[in-house]
């Protein structure tokens, strides 16, 4: 039980590291994901191809390999001087953006065609149709899967422990190596930290879902 009190500073740092990593890469993933979704539905073929290639490549690469590619590849491309934290943010953000793109796209696709047709036929313009009819409904559909992607992202941050980033996974690793503590107790506390984070994310998204919900 005293692992937590003995090493509270490490736990706090690891916890904050995980939260920070999740928050920043989540933000990057949202921006990139929405951009890629826009690419994939755009009338310009080159952008569509780029979007599709992005999603296919990133979705089928293991995250560990992507970490290797970014941490070793970007310095080789001349991007020197980034510390491992920002490389991890970049990796996790790009990886998750492929999944976010698909969630956003399937949200847009699941709005029935009749909705847009009706809006067009009463004379709404493109931006009115999109902004007042299609996107509000698409958002409502896309929010729950994006929430579960964010939870998955929070869990994936643990992989960064193999790449010199301070977060809960690396705390577990270093404390496991530090003899004298029961590793199951360490695991228990790490588990509690992760459950706090995932519950917070799912609570946040439930709140968002309720705000967006409409009575039918």
């Amino acid at each position, binding site marked *: 039980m005293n692992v937590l009190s003995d090493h509270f500073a490490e736990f706090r740092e690891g916890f904050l590291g995980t939260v920070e990593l999740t928050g920043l890469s989540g933000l990057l993933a949202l921006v990139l994901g929405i951009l890629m979704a826009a690419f994939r539905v755009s009338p310009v073929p080159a952008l569509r191809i780029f979007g599709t290639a992005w999603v296919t490549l990133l979705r089928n690469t293991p995250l560990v390999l992507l970490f290797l590619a970014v941490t070793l590849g970007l310095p080789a491309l001349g991007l020197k001087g980034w510390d491992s934290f920002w490389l991890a943010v970049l990796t996790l953000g790009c990886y998750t953006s492929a999944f976010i793109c698909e969630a956003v796209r399937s949200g847009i696709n699941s709005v029935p065609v009749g909705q847009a047709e009706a809006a067009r036929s009463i004379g709404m313009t493109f931006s009115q149709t999109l902004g007042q009819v299609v996107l509000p409904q698409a958002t409502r559909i896309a929010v729950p899967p994006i929430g579960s992607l964010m939870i998955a992202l929070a869990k994936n941050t643990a*992989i960064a422990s193999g790449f010199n980033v301070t977060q809960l996974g690396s705390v577990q690793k270093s404390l496991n190596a530090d003899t004298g503590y029961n590793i199951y107790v360490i695991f228990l506390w790490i588990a509690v930290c992760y459950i706090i984070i995932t*519950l917070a994310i799912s609570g946040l998204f439930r709140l968002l*879902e309720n705000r967006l919900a409409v009575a039918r």
Partner: protein
Amino acid sequence: MSANVLYDAPGPRARARNRLYGALSTVAILGLVAFVVYRLDDTGQFQPGLWDDYEYTDTHRRIVDGLLTTLKTFAIAAVLSVALGAVLASARLSDHRPVRWVATVVVEFFRAMPLVIMIFLLFAGVFTSDPMWALVLGLTLYNGSVQAEIFRSGINAVPRGQSEAAYALGLRKTQVMSSVLIPQAVRTMLPSIISQLVVTLKDTSLGFIILYEELLFVGKAFAEQTKPVNGVYAFIPMVIVFGSIYIVLCLALSSVATWVERRTQRSRKGAPPAMAMVGAAVTTDAAAGVDGASGADGSHTG
């Protein structure tokens, strides 16, 4: 919804504008690709010395060994996780409340835990000398819990009338399950099950972190021992070669899922019932720990 409902058919000016945007974005993307290739070449990643090793049969054998290890781990983990998923799902659908509770706690806990953390624990605590079983067991526990949710939502997606009719004919619960619900549910679930297997395949690369000699580990070891040519290490060639292997494997497996889906859709018996939990099918690398996905998916009646 196809995008062309959103706007009128483009006129001559809009078509010209679209062509302009098309040309501009093509140039931009080609420029990006060219820049990356140029930087790779400029930093000496394409020097023949770095790639020569991939021509030796010894190298081929090591890559194939790593590939076989990965596939073996994947096969064991896939079988075990589907079995565990079936057990947990039937426990969650049980009539006895304690069984249901225990299964729910187990499933929710293992879905909420990062796989790496679990593998670290298993490696440090149980299988200190045998990383393969740490990896397999971690994969099984995590993916088994996810598969359990897929099975459960598949069974729940079969229309109520089916089981009611079966009970009305006097079938017992086991009979209802095995001869009415499961045969129908399997067709709904199969694509989701296979896409979860793709996740399992990708996650075998986590063995890299506990130094298990699977494909990615072979790649890293290989890149480390290749002599640097003019001060350039062989990491980029490694990432390109091994990345392509992984992508081909995963694409092959996901194309099976797409094929199955298409096949069941044009089956004589009609389309399978739609599943409520879309989250598991489309999005997940790791579905929601705390059932976030199951809520609003089915509600868009328009």
